[in-house]
């Protein structure tokens, strides 16, 4: 139907109030505050320019957090996409109870990152875990938990994240794969395309927008990684698994260094918004084509 001005107000006002009050206004006020010495615990506020950002950037802990999250994102997101896509591809042809398969496979994603951290903490360590059980089976000696190891902690945290998120990717990609017309697959089969060629020449081009959308969500999620690491390693050992979100939270709420915490929070936002601009650009190219 044709919307009048009044209709539009009625439709958009509730969302505007919700997002304005609980997201946009706090975020913008917070951004302004990062250029001052503002903290809820002090009474005097002075303009301080980029001093807070300088403090964040010069902090070697934040540097370690940036390196960790770069590795984390560059390894975890492609793995999540590849594994999630692979399982969705296997489910693409009609089979009995496909909708049920889709939600059964979703189980790891239903485990909250916090609960997942608790669970893997126990599964990796001690005689009750899966790791020592598997090693015992192979008649190998028991090992210390990889989450306490300086070099293994980050890869382990990545593996746990992939376990949790890859099923969610399958869940998101399956409706897209299912909606590709059968004729497209048949053409490819008649042309003698292997399964790999079918993926490259049929699935990926057809799902380009959906893949971009899912990738955007995953990158955003990954750059904000907090809950999953909090219990699993707490950012350690040392700074081996520290992430910018953990850094930011620690500064603002634990060491009472509010301005530094808020400024580093905004650096996370800036990173996601930059990725978001690339996403909007790429998704629009598709429209133009």
């Amino acid at each position: 139907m044709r919307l009048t001005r009044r209709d539009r107000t009625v439709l958009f006002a509730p969302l505007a109030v919700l997002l304005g009050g609980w997201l946009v206004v706090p975020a913008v006020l917070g951004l302004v505050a990062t250029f001052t010495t503002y903290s809820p615990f002090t009474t005097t506020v002075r303009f301080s320019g980029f001093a807070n950002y300088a403090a964040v950037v010069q902090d070697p802990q934040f540097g370690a957090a940036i390196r960790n999250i770069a590795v984390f994102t560059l390894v975890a997101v492609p793995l999540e996409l590849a594994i999630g896509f692979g399982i969705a591809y296997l489910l693409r042809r009609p089979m009995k109870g496909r909708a049920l398969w889709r939600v059964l496979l979703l189980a790891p994603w239903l485990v909250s990152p916090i609960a997942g951290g608790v669970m893997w903490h126990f599964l990796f360590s001690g005689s009750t875990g899966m790791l020592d059980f598997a090693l015992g089976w192979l008649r190998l000696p028991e090992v210390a938990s990889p989450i306490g190891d300086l070099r293994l902690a980050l890869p382990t945290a990545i593996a746990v994240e992939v376990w949790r998120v890859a099923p969610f990717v399958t869940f998101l990609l399956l409706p897209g794969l299912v909606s590709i017309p059968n004729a497209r697959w048949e053409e490819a089969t008649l042309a003698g395309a292997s399964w790999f060629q079918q993926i490259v020449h049929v699935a990926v081009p057809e799902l380009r927008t959906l893949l971009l959308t899912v990738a955007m969500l995953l990158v955003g999620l990954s750059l904000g990684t907090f809950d999953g690491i909090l219990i699993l390693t707490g950012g350690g050992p040392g700074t081996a698994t520290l992430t910018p979100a953990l850094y930011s939270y620690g500064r603002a709420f634990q060491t009472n260094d509010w301005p530094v915490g808020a400024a580093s929070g905004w650096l996370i936002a800036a990173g996601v918004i930059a990725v978001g601009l690339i996403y909007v650009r790429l998704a629009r190219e598709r429209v133009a084509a």
Partner: protein
Amino acid sequence: MTRVIVLIAALVAFLLPLVWTVLAAFGLLPDTTPPSWKGSLTFGHFAEIGVAEPTFWQELATSTASAFFAAALAVGVAFLAAYGLARSRVRAGRTLTQGFLVLASLPVMAYVIPLSDVMRRVHLVDTFAGVVLAEAAVTAPLAVFVLHGALAQLSPEWEEAAVLDGAGLFGVLGRVVLPLVAPSLAGTAIVLFVLDWNMLLVPLVLTSGGIKTIPVGMSDFFTFERELDWRTAAAALIVSLAPLALLVTVFHRLLERFSLGLEIGRDIG
């Protein structure tokens, strides 16, 4: 055939850690030398949750109620806005919708520090309403994106017919649009319920003990007392996972309607 075998292998690989946890919750623990299982089947560890964390059952109720209201509020508000976007003549409507996806990807950590400050100043810290509204705001952008996809697929002709019959905006929404997209709304609400139920940072930062959800309770517990018995922790994990597992299994047909904007690739390509 190979396909089914690979799928079953994938299912086993992804679910094995959860099976391990279920066994531990019922008192069955592995032994490494030689690899075997020990312990006897018991429900006792579920009773011990309340001893280890006295407020656990209260947290379960709080999580359920806050996730329910936050999901309902977000889906309701997002439905109105998504309809507005889908029926706007604005050419930028598509870009605006993609903007909502970027907003949905924004980690809570990016703005939760100033949010906690603002909430304290308006006295919404440690209130049920504060948690519900903040969780709804976090998840609403994703709901707008998904529902816009569902609404853009509807043919406007039905709505025009209702308008000719003299229906206003709410008549059209209630009698024509809502019945057609109800499954999409329900599917989206279920996904949002899961996200809200598992959310840590928002309730963690906006409360100070008065209101407590399960993830906050778990993070408190493991920060201060790491010497928890694994079987009790496993029982708590299973109890906090069971409602979600039940929800998505019972409503798995509705979740078929949850998809990230298929029409975007479809009507153009």
